[in-house]
């Protein structure tokens, strides 16, 4: 493999990490900050993608589509927070898992009901559809560069929100002891509704951005949900920084594992079994990464005790 190709693959790994971060950010916000396991986060991602596809279909505008994704996912988030999630904060993780699992069923089949069983069309805007040439002669899709930029901006904004603002402090206080923060005069329910909607909106945005280069279909949220969980567990729950680092690690491992492992096994095996075994191991690689991280740091890289 040439060095240029390797650099390109590293870039790809970073980019796929950032894509994951978009999803993981909202999840870690809800999951870390409110102590809620939200399996339905993938459904919000799907809602965003479908809203974007529908609006892009009607209007032809990608910007409007992104706006629709944000709005639809935030609205969906707000509604499920007020109707369902709100009753789950002081329940244990199990009830949360079951209730949000049920939400997945409702969302998936509901979406299929409205939009049919076939994948929808959503494409990147024409202005961003081609590649740009990076230093070193690397051709890189410009849309992916945009995703990187948006991802980094969101990381920064969230970090500020949680670590620095008073709202962030109140949210975290509520996670430690909801009853107490209420007894001190903070309306934590309203705060949580807002945060949940924000997390949902991020998922929706991720769904729309990613949906333009992937497939917009029912069930699209589930694989990425699991990956996002892996990311925030590696990074440490509740830590935006952890989510970013975790996402990059997972992106790199996944991308480079798929590329390098078959090559590695090819050094001492016949090519066809090297491909099979290498790829088999590559598909397990992020889980191996996660297990390793947790063995040495049982609360993730940036997780508090």
């Amino acid at each position: 493999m040439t060095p240029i190709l390797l650099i390109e693959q590293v870039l790809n790994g970073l980019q796929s990490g950032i894509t994951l971060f978009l999803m993981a950010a909202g999840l870690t916000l809800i999951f870390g900050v409110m102590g809620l396991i939200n399996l339905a986060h993938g459904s919000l991602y799907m809602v965003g993608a479908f809203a974007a596809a529908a609006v892009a279909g009607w209007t032809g505008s990608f910007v409007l589509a992104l706006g629709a994704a944000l709005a639809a996912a935030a609205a969906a988030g707000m509604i499920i927070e007020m109707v369902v999630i709100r009753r789950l904060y002081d329940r244990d993780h199990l009830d949360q898992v079951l209730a949000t699992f049920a939400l997945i069923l409702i969302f998936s089949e509901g979406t299929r009901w409205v939009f049919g069983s076939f994948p929808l069309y959503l494409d990147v805007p024409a202005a961003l559809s081609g590649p740009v040439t990076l230093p070193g002669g690397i051709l890189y899709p410009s849309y992916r560069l945009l995703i990187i930029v948006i991802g980094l901006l969101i990381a920064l904004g969230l970090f500020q929100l949680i670590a620095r603002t008073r709202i962030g402090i109140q949210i975290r206080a509520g996670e430690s002891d909801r009853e107490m923060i209420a007894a001190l005069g903070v309306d934590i329910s309203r705060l949580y509704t807002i945060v949940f909607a924000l997390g949902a909106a991020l998922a929706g945005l991720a769904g729309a951005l990613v949906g333009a280069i992937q497939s917009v279909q029912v069930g699209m949220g589930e694989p990425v949900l699991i990956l996002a969980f892996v990311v925030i567990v590696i990074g440490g729950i509740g830590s935006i920084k952890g989510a970013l680092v975790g996402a990059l690690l997972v992106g790199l491992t996944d991308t480079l594992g798929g590329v390098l492992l078959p090559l590695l096994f090819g050094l001492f095996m016949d090519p066809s079994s090297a491909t099979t075994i290498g790829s088999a191991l590559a598909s397990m690689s992020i889980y191996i990464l996660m297990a390793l991280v947790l063995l040495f740091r049982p609360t993730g890289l940036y997780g508090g005790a």
Partner: protein
Amino acid sequence: DGHGGKLKVGMITTLSGGGAGLGIDVRDGFLLAAKGSDMLDIVIEDDQQKPDIAVQLADKMIQSEKVDVLTGIIWSNLAMAVVPSATAQGKFYLSPNAGPSALAGQGCSPLYFNVAWQNDAFYEAGGLWANDNDIEKVFLMAPNYPAGIDGMTGFKRTFEGEIVNEVYTKLGQTDYAAEIAQIRASDADTVYFFLPGGMGISFMKQWAGSGVDKNVMGPAFSFDQGILGAIGEAALGVKNTAHWAKDLDVPGNAEFVQAFQDEYGRLPSLYAAQGYDTALLLMSAMGKADVNDQDAFQAALKEADFQSVRGDFAFADNHHPIQDIYMREVVKEGDVVTNKIIGVAASDHSDVYGAECKM
């Protein structure tokens, strides 16, 4: 028989979840053919794309519904779970999709008829077409699971040029940046891939954005009508092999396409065509023999005395199709991105496993 002169058909297919589109097409095609006929009594159940549910439903169909014939399964792994035990219990099974090699070779059964294709067929035809069309260096890509590996093996079986590289991705992968970079860096002139469902959509969209300029080929599964709608213009120019296309000029096909559109308001897919043919086959046999006389009914099915929307259709000794396989190209007709036949890739194609089939 016990169903008042009717034949009772149990259809187990995928009607919920992400893979529902295929099952719905098979079902709708089948029902379209059966419409207006009172010969069939059809029970339909959703397998959720889970093998254990499919097995359970097959038991239900056989034990409680007492069906005569089973059909409907979309996925190879579900077929592997259901077919051997269904035929062991003396039920006919007509496959409207999926043809795992085990059921074409050693595991074949007199009661099992494949009305779609043996899994390798489209790939073998793809290899043959490449030989005749100046394709020399091919980059292969498929998910790392049996259907993917079998497919690539099928292509390699007939292709005579050079395989530059083979990449097996994770099943369900959605980001192909790394693979595209590898393809770009390789000196292949053509990418040949099999990525079912959403995987193929993702790959094609990302491929279009990457600016890499190479031929793209694959089996029809990644370029079927339901999928083309989601890929859009990014798929234009892709060559894909199939036994059917909506513009195929054989008797009955245009009528089928029209009737399907009238009935369901969308273009039929090849799965719909397979479902349609399956019902036609079944009804053709009913006119000739009683399902309770297994040998006679089996012989009647084997005759394949129906007008397939694919044109000539016959069964080989292992009850798998002998049929033409065409090369299609993705084109734009008006506003619709769709497939157009550009030639025959393999004529009277049948699979290589028949030799192992003893029945």
